[in-house]
């Protein structure tokens, strides 16, 4: 089975169960439909890392990156990229429409979207590395560990993400469109660990895969 589909099934809660043919066909068709519907967009900027008295910060901005986890993640990094990515409202609308007629399809589409936004972030991360000519130390998002979600509005403002990619944040700090990611990417420090090297990963202790007793792909 191809890796993308394995990922989608994993988001649907599959451990080792066999996948019946109808479900397999449903996943295939949802993957195609989500790819057709989503309008992935991303925007990023890179900054020098500034060590201020009360925490790290992207130089020249008023954004503070408090906490120990981001400090560990950016250890040795000279630069940090702010990345925001989204699949656009089309993905949300597609899922919402199916919720009224076929909830299973809606759930599968949701998982396809989750997989797709990760893929978009992976690609963006490679573009960041290429532009900076430095290795990424991995992505770390507001809400992971002790890096607060309250960062979101300022994070989006620095990137002008509303205007550039249509990404917004509610008062409850939920990113909208739903299938969106903001992440910090350390550059020029320790390279991102290989898959499954949990002990040296920036997301150690806060990773969803690890919580489920799994390793990341």
């Amino acid at each position: 089975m191809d890796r993308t589909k394995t990922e989608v099934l994993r988001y649907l809660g599959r451990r080792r169960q066999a996948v019946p043919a109808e479900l397999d066909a449903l996943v295939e068709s949802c993957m195609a439909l989500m790819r057709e519907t989503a309008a992935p967009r991303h925007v990023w900027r890179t900054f020098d890392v500034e060590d201020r008295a009360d925490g790290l910060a992207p130089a020249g901005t008023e954004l503070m990156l408090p906490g120990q986890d981001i400090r560990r993640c950016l250890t040795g990094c000279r630069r940090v990229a702010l990345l925001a990515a989204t699949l656009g409202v089309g993905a949300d609308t597609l899922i919402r429409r199916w919720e009224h007629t076929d909830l299973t399809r809606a759930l599968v589409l949701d998982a396809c979207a989750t997989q797709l936004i990760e893929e978009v972030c992976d690609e963006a991360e490679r573009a960041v590395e290429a532009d900076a000519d430095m290795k990424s130390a991995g992505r770390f998002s507001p809400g992971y560990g002790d890096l607060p979600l309250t960062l979101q509005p300022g994070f989006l403002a620095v990137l002008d993400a509303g205007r550039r990619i249509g990404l917004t944040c509610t008062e409850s700090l939920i990113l909208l469109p739903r299938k969106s990611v903001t992440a910090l990417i350390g550059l020029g420090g320790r390279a991102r660990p290989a898959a499954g090297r949990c002990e040296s990963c920036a997301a150690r202790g806060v990773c969803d895969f690890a919580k489920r007793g799994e390793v990341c792909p």
Partner: protein
Amino acid sequence: MTPPDVRAWMRDRILLFDGAMGTMLQQRGLTPGALPELLNIEAPEVVTGVHEAYVEAGADVITANTFQAHELKLGAASVEAVVAAGVGCARAAGARFVALDVGPLGQLLAPMGPVGFERAYEVFRRQVRAGAAAGADLILIETMSDPYEAKAAVLAARENTDLPVFCSMTFQEDGRTFVGCDPLTATVLLQGLGVDALGVNCSLGPALLAPVVETMLTYAREPVLVQANAGLPVIRDGQTVYETGPEAYADEVVKLVRRGVRIVGGCCGTTPAYIRLLRARIEGLAPVAVTPRRVTACTSGTRTVILNGATTAIGERLNPTGKKKMQAALRAGDVGYLLGEAVAQAQAGADVLDVNVSLPELDEPAVLAKVVREVQGVTDVPLQIDSADPAALEAGLRVYNGKPIVNSVNGKRTAMEAVFPLVKKYGALLVCLTLDEEGIPPTAAARVDIARRLRDEARRYGVPEEDLLIDCLVLTVSAQQAQVQETLAAVRGVKAELGLHTVLGVSNVSFGLPEREAVNAGFLAAALGAGLDAAILNPLSARYREVLDVFRVLNNEDKGAAHYIETRAARTKDAPAASAEARVLSLAEIIAQGRRDLAAGAVRARLEAVSPLDIIDREFIPALDEVGRRFESGEIFLPQLMQSAQAVQEGFAVIKDHMTRTGCGRESRGKILLATVQGDIHDIGKNIVRMLLENYGYDVVDLGKDVPIRTVVDTIRAQGIRLAGLSALMTTTVKSMKDTIAAVRAAGLPCTFMVGGAVLSPDYADFVGADHYAKDAMESVAIANEYFSAKS
């Protein structure tokens, strides 16, 4: 001296706006991410300096630094003060005209986001009032992605100021806005709202915007505006840069002016150098006259239906008349049932959906507005807002996202006086019934006369004739047999003598006859032959679809019969296999395998031998228990559990129908309230829980998502609810869950709470004060079973 009106000034001139503000402020040291609007007060000299550079470069209009000077962005700072200072800076720079700049709210509107339409309107109202009070000469609503948000802003501007309103939207490389609006839809919709100019800005450079602009020029009756970026933004060395220089920019913009664009300027990345060059290039260029194509078009927020040369099917099913289930759903406030009907009609090929909620005991304006809002959230098919009550029509028109059809006006003086102004104000196609104070005329000629009067009256209100759909009225053939030919003759007459579009509700004709579908289908064919443009009918009927599909081939609309061939091929493929399988699978197997397609048929067959209650208790529930057990043990995973639940849901629908018909009911196993808490807008998990609970025979009162605490408290009290399930997705909304439970407890209501959701854990459940934590949907069923069995 009063300055000239900008509309008069530009009558024989190309109007030149300024360029970017943000780009210039960042060059002068504005921190990335800081609010530029605050500089109006903190450093007005910097803002005025930017404006002066644009005035000196030759801009006619200076855009005040008020893009997001609204209460959602400014917070505590006074909107009025920031706007007044912003307009003041532009004025101080010596601007010929000052535009109040109105950008998007930075929050998505419902149903995509948390901001309701009326809330958006209020925020814009405060901003535009402040702008008018500060002396702005016009209002520029710009960088809009969502036409619904643009509508809120345009309405706010038109209802609260007398200033000219320009509105421009922002399109991406795929030719659509972030929310999927295309340039045709934007043009039709904004024109309907009566803007003074419309156009595009931001996102792309002028060359890439050319196809979008071309579409607008083809359909726009108002001047078209283009304020492009200095090229497509690209990232170099970690920074965004714009790579189209002033020369190339001006070259491309001048090409657009030669195509008919009347208003130009610049957006991100442009500077006074761009504007200066543009000034030089447009000097001496006279506006190019364009002849817009006049079409009969309605839209949703993302899709336009043009009736010219395209036979149109309007779905009639969202109407309680004669439909017991729909009446019950409306009375119970159960919008879910209506949404299912809406989606089904759209999937069956309806081009437009009629929405009617008239039941004597309902607050029709409020209910119509609510249903319009909900239905437009689940389909991109344009709506036809249907009511005899002008107040209900206005409520529906106001919250509608797009240019709808209004159903209807007629030749009575009172009806015309009430409806035409609404249609003029909001922009809509209008169904015109050919009846007046004297009733329905018996002859075709007299109906054509009423149509003519309606057209002439529409003109007086400024409603263009292409926006009228004449309904020559279908009478019942069993009662007034001779009248059917009069109706058809009237359709021909309206087409030939007036050249207007026609619409008919076909279903009336067959009343009182057996096999009504056959009669309706025959009449539909005759009416289409007479030149009917739009038919109001039940799109779920295969028979009508067949008539329409065939007519569209014969009428040269379905090119190469592509649609006809495709739909026939799909139909012959799967039908026989399913029925063969149904015979060999037991109901338990159908549920275990999650075969939705077979469930209804199997239940119908079982009902011949077994009572409905026995099917539920002895077949559904044991099968579901078994599926649940396999889910718990990890033999199957969530989508499989859900497919089984959906199969039961299909079977349940058959049983409910049977019970309604036979009048044998069943005691509910218990009533459970479900809600996704305030601030949280993702509720797929809650919907899964709802389906499972309903499968087990519970009545679920589903309050939806982002539910205010007050609504939860009030519903629990009003409906005497004893078990409630709350879901939250984010750590930030767990607090809202805690507050909701606390409020119910404080109100002294004896309600047990179960909670679940992505971030929930047993610890969190304790923290919020819940009685039970449900780790997944099956567990919520176990909790409910235990709760209600302990009680009984």
